[in-house]
Structures are given as structure tokens and as C-alpha cells.
């Protein structure tokens, strides 16, 4: 785990990230980390997107989580596919660790039946509230709670 100079933990978990969307023909390197949601029997991949305001779940996953039937705040977001109408829903997800501890987050995600372009962990609604670091030398994703968020 990463530590501060004074010995205090900076992060509490580490996982191996994929720098490509696994199996995709997309050539640009990105960071895909493992997350889990209660409705699914195994982990899924989500792209770290520090430029995104909201975290996004693919419609297929949102459907399995029964989030598409929610009554959350309706809003449009700007995406690479244009402006898309969806809803903001509060839900629970986990950032999975291979070593150390995982994190459970009760957070707001944007979902839409029209969105089939993958999962994203956005900055303002989620990443802004955790610590994270990447080590491209071995594709390690380090993460942990901020001091105020730690419980």
C-alpha cells in the first residue's frame, strides 16, 4: 500500500488495471479498473474518466440493477455520442482490490436506456472523494478513502 512520508496510509488497496478496453479495437490507452455491483455475479470494467462529471453505468448493467426504472433526477449529459437524456440514481458499487482492501461507495451514477458505451468512474461525483494513483510500470491502480470519507 502507498504511504505518506509520516507512515500514514495514503491508499489501502491495489488492483491490476487494463490499459485497453479489453477486447476492443480502440487504440488509445486508457485506464480500466475493476468494479463490482451487487446485482452481478462477478466484476465488470469501468474506465477512469477524470473529465467526466458523473459516473456512468452501461444500460445493460443498469437494467440488471433495476436502475432504469428509478425515479431519480432527470438530466442530459454531454458525451462523445452527443447529449443523452438519463437519470441520476443513487446506488452502491465497489472498487475491487487484488491486494489490501476494497472500497464500497454509495454514490450517484447516471444511467440511461440509450447508453451502451461502457462504464465510467467520473471525477466530480466519485473520484474527487477518494484517493487514487496509478503506476504505469506494472499497471497498478492504488486507491483508498480520503481522511474525511474514511469510516
Amino acid at each position, binding site marked *: 500500500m502507498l504511504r505518506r512520508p509520516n507512515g500514514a496510509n495514503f491508499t*489501502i488497496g491495489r488492483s*491490476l488495471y*487494463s490499459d*485497453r*478496453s*479489453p*477486447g*476492443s*479495437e*480502440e487504440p488509445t490507452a486508457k485506464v480500466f479498473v*475493476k468494479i463490482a455491483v451487487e446485482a*452481478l*455475479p*462477478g*466484476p*465488470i*470494467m469501468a474506465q477512469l474518466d477524470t473529465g467526466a*462529471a*458523473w459516473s456512468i453505468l*452501461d444500460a*445493460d*448493467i443498469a*437494467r*440488471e440493477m433495476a436502475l432504469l426504472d428509478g425515479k*431519480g*433526477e*432527470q*438530466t*442530459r*449529459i*454531454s458525451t462523445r455520442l452527443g447529449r443523452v*437524456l438519463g437519470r*441520476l*440514481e*443513487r446506488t452502491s458499487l*465497489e472498487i*475491487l*482490490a*487484488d*491486494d*489490501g*482492501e*476494497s*472500497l*464500497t*461507495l*454509495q*454514490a*450517484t451514477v447516471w444511467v440511461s436506456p440509450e447508453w451502451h*458505451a*461502457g462504464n465510467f468512474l467520473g471525477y*466530480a*461525483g*466519485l473520484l474527487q*472523494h*477518494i484517493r487514487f494513483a496509478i503506476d504505469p510500470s506494472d499497471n497498478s491502480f492504488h486507491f483508498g*478513502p480520503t481522511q474525511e*470519507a*474514511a*469510516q
Partner: protein
Amino acid sequence: MLTDTADPFVQRILHRPPPAPPKPPRGDLLLGHALLGAMLVEAPSAFERLGAIGSSEVLFVNDILMPGANLLVAEEPRTFTQPAMEMLAREVPAPASTLAAKPVDARARPESPKPEHDIRPFVLAVRTLIENERLTAARQMIDAAPAYILSDLLVARLRSVLAPPVVKRVQKRDIDRSREYEWLRTHGNEHRGRWVALVGPNLLASAPTLGQLRQQLQDMALPNAPLLHRVD
């Protein structure tokens, strides 16, 4: 821009003819209009100067946040003697032509000992910030909202979606997925557009939808939780 939204609540607000409410006394607590403008400038301290704000007739929230929402902004501060949602439910379903032909009868509103404040400009302003992905500003506005509107259903919903995540440590680990990633690199193109379930280098199931994939997995004895992935 705002009229582009599909939110029926906002649409109703934007197309609703302005009511003719009674004037409040000067200095009355005012939620909408000038107060919102003040919040944008100095959100934390805006409520400390309610008296001065309440008497202001200069409205600039629409210039900053809602250039297309002038219908909402009155020339003077005002309060309503009915809850906002009740007014909407009663008046909006009627066609616009009917409303136009029917003069507003302010006396029909029963007197209330404690006037309700109009939360709609506040809600619309926060929604506009959300649509513009200015989440920090939206959170600051919600955090600075006076206590008497926090119980409103719409405000509570906005407050909920804007709340920071609750983060907890959990003693749970996944396995190393490097072999799954490798499998996807070498075999992914054979399953493009489909959902796959992998454990190590083994493909457990493949299906066109996640629901069908889950059905296939239900009857399997799984050594480890499979990585689920749609190959794009």
C-alpha cells in the same frame, strides 16, 4: 437551452403563465429571484443579508443561469399562499387557452397563517447547474439553501443526487485478472458485440445480452467469480 429539457416539471414551469400573488411585506424571507442571484455571488454569506436581499427588485439570476427562463422571474419579491406543487397540479393540466381565458382569482386561495415560499426558481437554478455539469456550484447552492426548503421533495431529491459518496473500507478481494485480459486481447474479436464471462483463460459463457449471460451462469458451479465484459 432550458426549454430543451425533457423534464416535465421544468416544462410545466417554463410554460406556465405567471400567477398574480399578493405582495409580501418588505424584508420577508425570500427564496427565489434576487436571493438566488446573491447566492451565486456569495453563497455562504447570502442568507445573512436576507433583509437587504428581500427588498431588492433587481433580478439577475436569469441572466446568469437561466437566459431562457424569464417567465419565472417576477419584477418584485413575492410569496405564495399555496404549496408550489399543489398549484402546479391544479393549474397545469388545463390547456393554455383555457387558462388564458380564465382570469386568475387570487381570492380563491385560502389564507394561510404562514406563507409558503416558491422553491421553483431555486430548483431550476440547481438543475441548470447540473445540466451544465457545474456540480461544485450546484452543491454549494444546495448546501447554502435555507432549512425551510430542505424538506421539499424536489429539493431533497437534488440534495440526494448531489451528496458526496459514502465511502467504506471492505475486507474483500478480487483475483488477478491478467489472464482474462489476455484472453480478451487474443479472442475478443471472436465475440464482438457479445457479453462474455471469463475465469482465467476459460470462457464460461457468451451471450448477446447480460441477462442471457446471467441465465447461463446460474446453473454453473463457478470456481471464482467470473469477469463479465461486453466486447465492443
